[in-house]
């Protein structure tokens, strides 16, 4: 019996509006509402709503014989609340069938696992409680943004109490091994690792409607044949892809819905095939081998690494700058700032800055609001500059020669102390002399209120 595990990723970022440097310090709203609403509505009409309907009819028809799994970012749920609350209801309806599982991930669809462990844990917890409150289900399997996986990240996830985590079945990770088995984390063997079968997943996600593909048109029979043709001992196939595959990446006219429906019907009928969820796999199977991934892998591009988000200097500068602000954000305890902080972390912003897009243009251009990576970087940095100004105002952060006081060290620190002592001395001196002169003469300052009222009265008279 071969098991098919369907998991769909659902995410939409809050795209940033055109933000010029002259807006810095003046305009504190960063999002392109029109574009975000437009894209969300479009994708909802082409994908979320019709595909949810199809899945609901299949789930109710086949009861526990058909199962699907979703991972939804917090940003996606936030956007649905703003622009398409009915879509939340339709997802809740799916969840009510009892055959739908939800995964844990980062709230912001962020790469925080590469920056800060504490923030990573915070974001995962935030996301979990959001899923619990919307769907009443507690996830037990974790998927990291863009399927980023490394030994260290896996260990951190195990520490949070998850039984399993999802990763990419990348060639440089697996070598000769097959993704159709369960593995375990080398640092913490308790954490089971499920790997994406990228060949079969991408046949649907990327190639389905491609007419120059040798296998076009892809029918359910043929696809199921491929699944059955996997070696005997391999007991499950992980088909992980963007939910937008159904209707958006692969348009409805390509027949993707008909394919999905036919496939589900044939699998249910087939005695040698069935559906399952990641948590069932993790419960039912024992891992066959440890998986060693010292450097982070992901599900993007040919390289399956982080180079699409953190490959060039611009991306690194923006990323490091962003995460250097964590302590300030916590200190500020401001709702609006915390929200912007979450939205600015979305990996999409860094993706737009990728210079790989000159070669991998097709995928990188998708929904990309910028003309060039340079454009994306400048826009993001302008917004981040404004965000920092707000943070520093709120937390009353003081800088000396442009360096925040808490980061001063060595010679700079001594210099700053000297400079401030000098200023203090001058200020004290000034206070002393003004106090003395105030004692001796009729002080102008005490009469100031009088004077002020007089001028306003005079002003009023003038106006009359």
């Amino acid at each position, binding site marked *: 019996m071969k098991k098919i595990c369907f998991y769909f990723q659902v995410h939409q970022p809050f795209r940033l509006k055109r933000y010029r440097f002259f807006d810095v310090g003046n305009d504190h709203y960063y999002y392109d509402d029109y574009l975000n609403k437009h894209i969300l509505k479009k994708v909802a009409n082409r994908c979320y709503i019709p595909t949810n309907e199809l899945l609901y009819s299949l789930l109710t028809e086949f009861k526990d014989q058909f199962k699907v799994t979703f991972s939804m970012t917090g940003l996606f749920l936030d956007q649905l609340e703003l622009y398409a609350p009915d879509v939340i209801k339709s997802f809740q309806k799916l969840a009510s069938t009892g055959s739908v599982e939800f995964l844990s991930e980062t709230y912001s669809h962020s790469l925080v696992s590469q920056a800060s462990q504490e923030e990573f844990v915070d974001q995962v917890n935030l996301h979990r409680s959001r899923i619990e409150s919307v769907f009443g289900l507690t996830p037990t399997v974790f998927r990291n943004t863009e399927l980023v996986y490394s030994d260290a990240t896996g260990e951190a996830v195990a520490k949070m109490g998850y039984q399993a985590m999802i990763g990419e079945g990348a060639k440089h990770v697996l070598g000769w091994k097959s993704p159709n088995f369960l593995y375990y984390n080398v640092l913490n063997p308790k954490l089971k690792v499920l790997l994406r079968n990228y060949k079969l997943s991408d046949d649907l996600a990327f190639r389905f409607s491609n007419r120059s593909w040798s296998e076009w048109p892809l029918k359910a029979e043929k696809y199921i044949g491929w699944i059955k043709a996997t070696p005997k001992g391999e007991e499950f196939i992980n088909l992980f892809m963007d939910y937008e595959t159904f209707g958006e990446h692969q348009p409805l006219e390509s027949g993707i819905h008909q394919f999905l429906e036919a496939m589900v019907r044939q699998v249910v009928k087939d005695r040698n095939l069935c559906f399952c969820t990641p948590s069932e796999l993790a419960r039912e199977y024992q891992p066959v081998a440890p998986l060693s991934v010292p450097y982070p892998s992901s599900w993007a591009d040919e390289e399956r690494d982080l180079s699409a988000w953190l490959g*060039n200097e*611009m991306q690194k500068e*923006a990323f490091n700058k962003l995460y250097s602000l964590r302590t300030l954000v916590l200190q500020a305890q401001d709702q609006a700032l915390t929200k912007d902080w979450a939205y600015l972390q979305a990996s999409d912003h860094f993706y737009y800055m990728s210079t790989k897009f000159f070669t991998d243009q097709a995928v990188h251009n998708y929904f990309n609001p910028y003309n060039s990576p*340079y454009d994306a970087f400048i826009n993001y940095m302008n917004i981040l500059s404004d965000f920092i100004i707000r943070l520093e105002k709120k937390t009353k952060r003081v800088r000396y020669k442009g360096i925040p006081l808490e980061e001063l060290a060595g010679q700079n620190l001594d210099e700053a102390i000297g400079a401030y002592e000098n200023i203090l001395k001058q200020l004290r001196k000034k206070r002393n002399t003004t106090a003395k002169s105030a004692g001796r003469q009729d002080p102008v300052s005490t009469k100031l209120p009088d004077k002020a009222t007089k001028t306003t009265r005079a002003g009023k008279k003038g106006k009359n």
Partner: protein
Amino acid sequence: MFGWEFPPHISGGLGTACYGLTQGLAYHGVDVIFVVPKAYGDEDQSSLKLLGASQIPIRKRNYQFKTSGIPSEDQSSPEMVQEMLYIEIGSGLVPYLSPEEFEQYIKDRLLAGDTYWSGKFRQVTPESSEYTEIMGTIDFTGRYGPDLMQEVSNYSIIAAEIAIEQDFDLIHAHDWLTYPAGIAAKNVSGKPLIVHVHATEFDRSGENYNTIVYDIEKSGMMAADLVVTVSNLTRSIVINRYGIDPGKVVTVYNAVESDRDKEPAQVKKNFDEKVVTFLGRITYQKGPEYFMDAANKVLKHTDNVRFVMAGSGDLLRKMIRYAARLGIMEKFHFTDFLKGQEVDYMFALSDVYVMPSVSEPFGISPLEAMRSNVPVIISKQSGVSEILKHAIKIDFWDVDAMADAIHGLITYNGLSSMFQEYGKGEVENLKWEKSALELKNHYLNLLNSTS
């Protein structure tokens, strides 16, 4: 090949392009006879003699290229000296002036008791050149006068003479001043004509174009067997505004000479501010006022920057007055025309280079900036934006975007290091040898189809 300027006497991009192309063609084994009008006073002619002459002096010399470095398949020795026959014709032709400006220029020159413009030209020293022969003069009965059109037509008469005398397979004419020469040469020799469009009248003058120049351009393009444009932007102008059959218009992009052998200019900056540079003729075509508007916006928000407008042109005075009116002269500097070495210094001093051209058929200068590790902002209305990836591209009129890009480049360090990493490599891949090879292939196709 008929040109109108050639190093060391160049006043703009055309001379550089002709030099690069001929050098590249020589590298690929194409023999070139290069004909230019000679109007510079630093040789043995005086202006009066030039103006009053009833004979046109013609000078022939062998121009030598050293093709250094890259060995190619069909040449055994990489250090091969290529020779090109170089012909100069005494003429009053001055590049980059409209007929009206030319008239004024001649008048001014006479009034001032004739001082030559030589100081104004960038002195680029050719690698080596030696005279082999002075041909003497060709009798010519036409009148020399302060009329550009007359000069153009004189040039074409001599071109016909040269076409009778010399042995060649193809005629290649660069820009409108030489088109009549190209047509004349074609008429007497029957050889195929290629016209090379480095700029059109629309680029130079906008919609207030000179109809006589337009007519000359159009007749050149019509008579040509092949029209070569420096970008697809120019190609579409040639097709749409001149009504030329798209089938005979091809694009061959310009390139930039490698400066690998050159010592990087060492300049010590005596102030902390970042430097943002505009370098080019200060004319309508180059969009200097947009640069100034953007500078004004940036200066309103940050102190840490200085702007430089290097070059001269008919809008220079207007620009100075404009800067004064905006009250930014403290941070906005004019250098007037920069020569050879000074250009390198300027690049070495710059942190950002901006080319806000309203209409730029190609635009080699951003490539020179990138070669010197300077990040560039270029207008989308330039031909060079079709081939550059590692540049910020903006619409020339979008002053906000320009200001934002300038601010980004001087503020966020990640950006400039990106340009340093990728920009230089990108530019070094744009070699004249490549452009020349494309051109050679077009030559061969043309010869095959016409014979």
